């Protein structure tokens, strides 16, 4: 109890920082110079309809590379961290039988979900969405599959392969920017195309596709690992 009280005091005094921050915070009424520049020049420079996407993939593409790396590292770490013996993998767990509704629904929904995922990352430069979101949607489809068929194992080698190849391609695409455009991760390797068109904004859709694949497979791998590790015997 004393401990909790002390923690309470601690957090209360921590709020002093936030109170100070809040008091000194003023909402913006116009865009700052940086975002103004993006708002004004992005359509000509990059040609992506979604400003956020253009920032994410190109202007701050290096961050995104980092993001991807983080997910990749997390997946890799979980991969070897939760690795279990092959013999354990084949073991059956004593699980409740999946409900029929779920089984049936998954058969219908999973393709749709995949389609949605593809749509989301393919249209990342036009509409809200992008590789991460799309990838997550696809991974959720996989989760649904796993829920419906809990006995099945994720095929890690397949997903790792997809993940690796997409990651590698992403880096290669980035490097292309050095040689064929103005810098690492520059999307203007390909022609910018028609603003608002699906094949526009240079490399962005391509990059987002690979990111989507990569994120989807990574998340699937993670979920699969988390699931399988339950089988591990002491």
């Amino acid at each position: 109890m004393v401990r909790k009280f002390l923690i309470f005091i601690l957090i209360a005094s921590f709020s002093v920082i936030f109170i100070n921050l809040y008091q000194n915070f003023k909402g913006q009424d116009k865009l700052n110079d940086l975002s103004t520049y993006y708002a004004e020049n992005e359509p000509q420079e990059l040609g992506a309809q979604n400003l956020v996407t253009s920032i994410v993939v190109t202007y701050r593409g290096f961050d995104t590379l980092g993001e991807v790396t983080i997910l990749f590292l997390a997946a890799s770490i979980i991969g070897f961290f939760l690795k279990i013996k092959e013999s354990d993998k084949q073991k059956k767990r004593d699980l409740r039988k999946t409900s029929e509704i779920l089984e049936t629904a998954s058969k219908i929904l999973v393709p749709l979900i995949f389609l949605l995922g593809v749509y989301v990352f393919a249209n990342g430069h036009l509409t809200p969405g992008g590789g991460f979101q799309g990838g997550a949607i696809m991974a959720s489809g996989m989760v649904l599959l796993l829920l419906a068929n809990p006995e099945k194992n994720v095929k890690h080698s397949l997903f790792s392969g997809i993940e690796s190849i997409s990651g590698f391609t992403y880096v290669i695409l980035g490097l292309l920017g050095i040689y064929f455009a103005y810098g690492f991760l520059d999307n203007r390797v390909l022609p910018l195309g028609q603003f608002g068109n699906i094949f526009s904004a240079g490399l962005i859709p391509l990059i987002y596709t690979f990111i989507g694949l990569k994120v989807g497979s990574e998340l699937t791998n993670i979920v699969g690992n988390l699931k399988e590790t339950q089988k591990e015997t002491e």
Partner: protein
Amino acid sequence: MVAPIYIITIPLGIAFLIGVLGKSNKNIGGMFMLIALACMSFVSAQWFISFMTSTQSPVYIYTAGFKPPFSINLLMGLNEAFFTLIINIATLLGAIYLYNNLKKQGTNAMSVFLGFAMALNVMVMTRDIFNLYVFLEIASVATAGLIILEQGLKSTSAGFKYMIATGIISSILLIGIIFAYNYSGTLNIDGLIEANIGILKGGAIAIFLILIAIVLELKPFPANGWALDVYQGADSGIGAMISAASASASLYVLYKLFAIAGESWYPVIAVLGIITFIASNLFGLKQTNSKRLLGYSSIGQIGLLITVLGLSPYLGDKFEFIAVTLLISHYLAKAILFWISGIVKAENIKNWSNLRKKPLLVALFGTAVFLLLGFPPFPSFFGKWELVMQLANSGQFAWMTAILVGSFFEGIYLFRWFGYTLKLDNKELPEYKMKLNKIIPPAIFGVAAYILGYYSGTFVDAAKGLDYIPLLFIAFIALINFLPAWVKNSISLTGVILYIAVIFPEFDGDLLRQIFAAIFLGGAVLALFAGFYSKGKRSGFHVVTLAMFAGLAMLLKADNLLEIFYAWELMTIGSYFLLIRGKKSMPHGYSYMMFSLGGSYALIFGFALAFVSFGNLDLQSLSGITIYPTLAYSLMLLGFMTKTASFGLHIWLPGAHGEAVVDIHFMASAILLKAGVFGIILVLLGMGTEASYAKYILYTLGWIGAISALIGNIAASFQESAKRLLAWSSIGQLGYIVFGLALMSHLGWMAGIFYTATHFLYKGVLFLTIGGIALKLGTPYMYRMGGLIKKMPFSFIAVLIAIITLSGIPPLVGFAGKWLFYNAIISQGLYFQGIVVLFSGIVAFLYLFRLIYSVFLGQLKDEHRNVKELPLCLLIPIYILIIAIMIISARPDFILKPIGNYLLAYFPSGALNWNGTMASTGLGYWDGYWVMIIVGVMFTLLFGWLLILNSKSKKVKQFNMVYAGEKPFRPETTHMSYNMFSGYNKALGFFMMPGVTGFWNWMSDILHDTANYFRRIYSGNGQSYAIHIIAYIIIIYLIVF
């Protein structure tokens, strides 16, 4: 040149790519990983070299082809090149080291390792603050993954604590970043610097949050429990990476972000750093787990570096040099230590004696320890020196003190550890293998430490005059360590003699240095000659011996304070290794090192004050120190007195010397102690007598000398071990010398210097003979010896002459010293100290008689019936010294006259007058030549008479003596030696109460208890660590704002 962007893309691409390889092709994956890391190192190296050698200007890398602030840019300048280089080399070697572990976990782990390396590089190079956050997170996640490379409960719980801590820290950073963006409208670091948001309250808070987060990444005390657990729980290869690579990157990040923060943050950071430095080194004192101890040390060192960063305004243009040398030392040493700890696989530091099974590891360990503590010839030596000098220059004495105190704490546990490693029993410890991939990385770093040590010396002006030839020679001897002892001995002897031929002419006209050179280098020749007695390899002996003598020679050659300090520390290293070679000398070697370390910190403090007063480092700057002169001179004297083992600082000597074998004992006692005398002479010459403070210092010094003499001699009388007896006697003799010097008069100095020379002669004889006998008989205890006169007549004669000289009995030369003392004391008016000194001179008879009687006279023990005379290689040096004694005894004016003339330059009044061979002062007179003749003639005549009278004497055997009508039982029970001066002990035994030892033990206990009490905040609960972090932020916040 390869563009810097490839430092990032190559590892990233390969990290992604090797995922494809899957489980089957682990070796290929490993190759790819190593190639990637090698490429990264190559790229950084090429940039670094081009920055160093040409006027290459920094290169910006613009991602996406836009200029900042619109896109993220990276910078490759000299700093970045340096940091990425050290990070990449560390990760490359770390990967080699961890190769098997990584392979076991598959390509995934290799990808993580590459990601880790890449993230650190970006952290260094990026100029975008949000990008920094992202890659910091990558580094954290990768670290969290690497921690569990060796899976187990410990590593997993440590990793989880790490994740909690870094989770909170990075969130704080993110809040800071986003508010910084809010106020500045940019995420570019250069933009932020320009925006100067610190003037706004909110902006200041944002900066605070950013900085505190980076500081927290650097594990400040007390919010660093998680880091310690990580160091302890993770594989030591990972520990090396975190300590060497991550810390370097984080430090650079802090340095980079400092520009945003502005000057007002310097003191805050410095305070945080120094608290960490002192506290974690203090807490390390009670630690017994090796990896956790390394963790404490790592954190402490990083604390020091943070302090240096915070103190950069005071360091001027030396800042970079200091920071780089200290960083590189920490980097090399910690990597080596962690790597070694992974090889030896001993959790408890007491089990590290296992290291001795592989001498290379011991050498590396020693290198790392001395590297960490700033001993020459390593870069940290120059770094610490410049740090102290610059701080003193800016008047920051409190900072100086704090840094030195923290370093001292570090020395305490490192040397304890090192002592355990060198001395504890290792028979029952498990065998282990030294795999090639595990030994190459630390070996490379070990070599690098020496090379960089030389290299960093070239950046220091004062170190330009350093003579590296002896060091090269030592390195050569180290390389041929595998040869038998006599070969190395011959080579070393040749080397020393050649060096004498080179160096001796340099001292032409400087009698003082000539005398000391004769003692140091002549002693070296004799000691090495005596070394021929030893059989086998004597691994490492010649290296450390020569290091000590090189230090001594450099001490004489030194032209400025830095060179003195360099030589002093070099000698300390050598002598430490020599002293710790004895059988049971672990605690003594340890306390020797502690006093030496404390002493050298006192010295450097004093030197700094001298430097500040004078503005340069010449030897002249020792005279007329104007800033805290009393303190400066006292500290310098204190520092030098740790070597002369004066009262209060003497407790290391009896044990250390008592355990040393014959030639080491000779070197340590007869030669090494004189280095302290030389130092005191230098200081006193500088101080002079005029200044008002000089009187008090000299008065105190005089009493210290007198009490040392008394305590040393009385204690010597109560020793049972012959070697300890001689050791205490050395304390007493050095007490005379110190007292003589403290008189600060012509006669006093003559006595002091004369004593220095003669002490070398007669003590040399005693150490070599008694040491040789103790070695031969296998025991130093006098009550186990006895009756050896019949077996070792030559040794007996040598010892007899030596003790007659030592006790100052005419006609031998020891009397000259006593006579000078009388005259000096009376003419100088220091009666009471003088009386104490003279009294102790008389007390010397007690132990001298005991020595010669118990060893040579009395009853011969059964087991020594077949003992032979000492080997020639000992007898020849002994008799060389004896001949020297006899020559000086016959014509003391040969040596006294030049000393007197030399000292006239310093003490023009009150000289000793010479009339032929007759010396006279205002008080008395003495003619050593005539005394010798008179006594000699008389003795011969009486001897003849006695021969005539006693011609009929019948020689009898051992037990043919009066024994109250009985026969003696056995030699053991008939030899009266144990507790010989029991009556004296009853009367004056209270002098032997271990008061000084008790005082130091008390100090040490207090220190350790404090450490033990406060380190309990590291409760092991990850949540508590989170609370520490939050509380830390709040407290710093409340203090700053």
